[in-house]
């Protein structure tokens, strides 16, 4: 099983659409896939038409063995399940801090999933916190959507520095450009000459497209309703690049 976290310190960069669409593509290939909506906003749960609620909340999920298996919901798509969001995730930070091995506590939730899934995509809330550190500890790679702007690149640099400082050099950071608007000169400039300080960035990029935004209207993964769109093709190429990177690493 591979755990891939869609993560960024910044919000509104396309984490949820990455987790949902890549999860959908993995499931279409026959891989048993779980999307874990770890963002209290519950956007991924909304896209799958699942109530953002876990009975017993965060505490129960963390304390009771194999609890995750009881609260997972099947989506409308074969091989694709969802571990829904819960509003109590907003206090996750506090709950994690309250106990031993504070940086490793999400492991207990992930452990029973190992026999059930080939891929777990975590949709993280924006921040860099104890929750993020827990996510880093269970992930096989971070998928970091990055808007080609100065501020976004700065936060990517912050993440890379954090990794270096915290001895996480084994954790691959797969950054890719997201919400790319080719009409904007700055986007074109950064895309054509990505700064070297930002580490290596994947070649596939996700365009800024209205089809992607319509995910909220259709409440479905993008390839499910606009399989032939440019944006869907971009996600497909991103997914195959991610798989290659995982195999190579």
């Amino acid at each position, binding site marked *: 099983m591979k755990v891939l976290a869609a993560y960024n310190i910044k919000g509104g960069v396309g984490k949820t659409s990455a987790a949902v669409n890549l999860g959908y593509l993995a499931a279409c290939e*026959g891989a*048993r896939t779980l999307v874990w909506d770890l963002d209290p906003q519950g956007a991924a749960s909304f896209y*799958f*038409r*699942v109530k953002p609620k876990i009975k017993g909340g965060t505490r129960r999920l963390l304390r009771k063995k194999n609890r995750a298996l009881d*609260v*997972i*919901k*099947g*989506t*409308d798509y074969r*091989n694709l*399940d969802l571990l829904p969001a819960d509003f109590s995730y907003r206090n996750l930070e506090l709950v994690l801090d309250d106990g031993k091995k504070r940086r490793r506590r999400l492991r207990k939730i992930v452990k029973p999933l190992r*026999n059930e899934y080939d891929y777990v995509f975590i949709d993280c809330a924006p921040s860099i916190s104890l929750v993020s550190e827990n996510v880093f500890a269970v992930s096989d790679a971070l998928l970091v959507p990055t808007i080609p702007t100065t501020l976004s690149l700065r936060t990517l640099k912050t993440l890379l520095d954090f990794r270096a400082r915290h001895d996480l050099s084994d954790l691959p950071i797969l950054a890719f450009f997201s919400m790319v608007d080719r009409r904007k000169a700055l986007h074109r400039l950064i895309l054509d000459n990505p700064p070297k300080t930002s580490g290596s960035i994947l070649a596939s990029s996700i365009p800024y497209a209205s089809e992607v935004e319509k995910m909220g209207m259709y*409440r479905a993964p993008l390839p499910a309703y606009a399989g032939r769109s440019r944006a869907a093709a971009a996600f497909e190429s991103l997914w195959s690049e991610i798989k290659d990177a995982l195999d190579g690493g």
Partner: protein
Amino acid sequence: MSWDSEFILPSGAGVRELTRRLRKLTPCRPDGRRSVERTFLDTFDWRLYNRGKVLEERHDGNDDIVLQMRALRSAGPEVVAKPAAAVRFVRDLPAGTMRRRLESVVQMRALLPVVRVHSRISTLRIIDKNQKTVAFLELEKNKIAAGSRSRSAAELTRARIVPLRGYVKAARGLSQLLVEALECTPAENDTFVAAALLACRKPGAYSAKLDIRLDPDTPAHVASKLVFRRLHEIIRCNENGMRQQIDSEFLHDFRVAVRRTRSALAQLKAAFPQTPVDRYLRDFRWLQQTTGSARDLDVYLLKFADFENLVDRSLHADLRLLKEFLGQQREIAYRRLVRSLDSKRYRKLMNDWQAFIGQSSRERSNSNSAVPAIRDLARKRIWRLYRRAMKEGRRIKTNSPAEHLHELRKTCKKLRYLLELFQGIFPKRKLKKLIRSLRQLQDNLGEFNDLQVQSEVLQSFSTKMYQKKDGKAETLMATGVLVQALMKKKSAARVEFQSHFETFAQPAVDALFRELFHTTAADRAP
């Protein structure tokens, strides 16, 4: 609460009619129709079925093969794999969950088609007020494909609920709806079982287990004939698989049945006239010898991965030639084996033996008036073998020759067979305990003996290869390293023997043997 997931449609109502009626009762949406060719697979001895598993290979229009495993009488695949080609052995599967799950159950057995079914499946999505799918209902029309013709049966038109994780309530509600409002009947059998039965295949029909219920007071010759008949059945059942070399276990089951027959015949010969017994003992010994080398080669090939693990990785390439050579030898041995099965001697043996064990018992008992009850004879023989095993075991010291262990191994084997053949007569729990303690000793003795034989035979094979110029010096050397590793393991097994024997010879086990099998003067008095 459990609920039914598979239903038979009410008579007269087809898939279309049911769909029409269901749509009036619950929000749902059609989700496509597809034709699938399904082949249900299991081993010859029904290992999957016996564990409550159903394995099917699905071909849909494209060339893709999907392998699905689920629990018997449950919907939805538990594990899915997409092998590149049809799978015959678990080792052909790509690494993954499916392979891991199957490995422990199927082991070295071949996966054989049990029944082929052509299915037309229409799927309905049951949805909630958010348009979220909460369950799937698959309506299947199945036809059994038999050669060019196919057969359908009302029993094979089915509705199957595929529940969605986390939506049990919805699935249960749908189940209720199907029964109460739509007059569907919960299916008694899984589709797999129903289709297999219609194709005249009874799941679970073959087993190499004995499972004979015996009345302890049955005269010995009657009881032993029941056992012989069962063993004869096993022998005949496996002939075909041996001829076709489907997998290694046909020959194995065959040989075990032959050996059990021999052993029982030799131990219980007091119950039969001497002349035919001697002849059958001779013939069955021949049968076992003539099939021996094929089995040995099967074992070397099955164990080859273990052999490889005993030597350094750098030598694996050099051992490949040895493996190929073993494969060729195996082919030769199997050809010889098939010739034996085709021989007049074998045919005559089987015919005469069948007549002999089929003879009505009354006629025999007249000619031999003092036939003891099976309980008494079995007790006597088991007790005697046990005493012999103890005697042979006690004389083995650290410097005793290998032959002494070999003798003990043979005695233990005979004892084990008798315990197993007549397990129906004695208290089950106690007998199990004895068999368990005996098995540990046997495993040790067997390992010692196997390693001894293997190292000798492998060495001689590689020398033979080298002389025939089939092999390279590297292969000869790599085999030498392997043989050395085997010898080292053998010495370890030899050292362990003492503790295994002591465990077997402990007073508690002895007391149990005594209790079950020792006949005192008081027993014999009446």
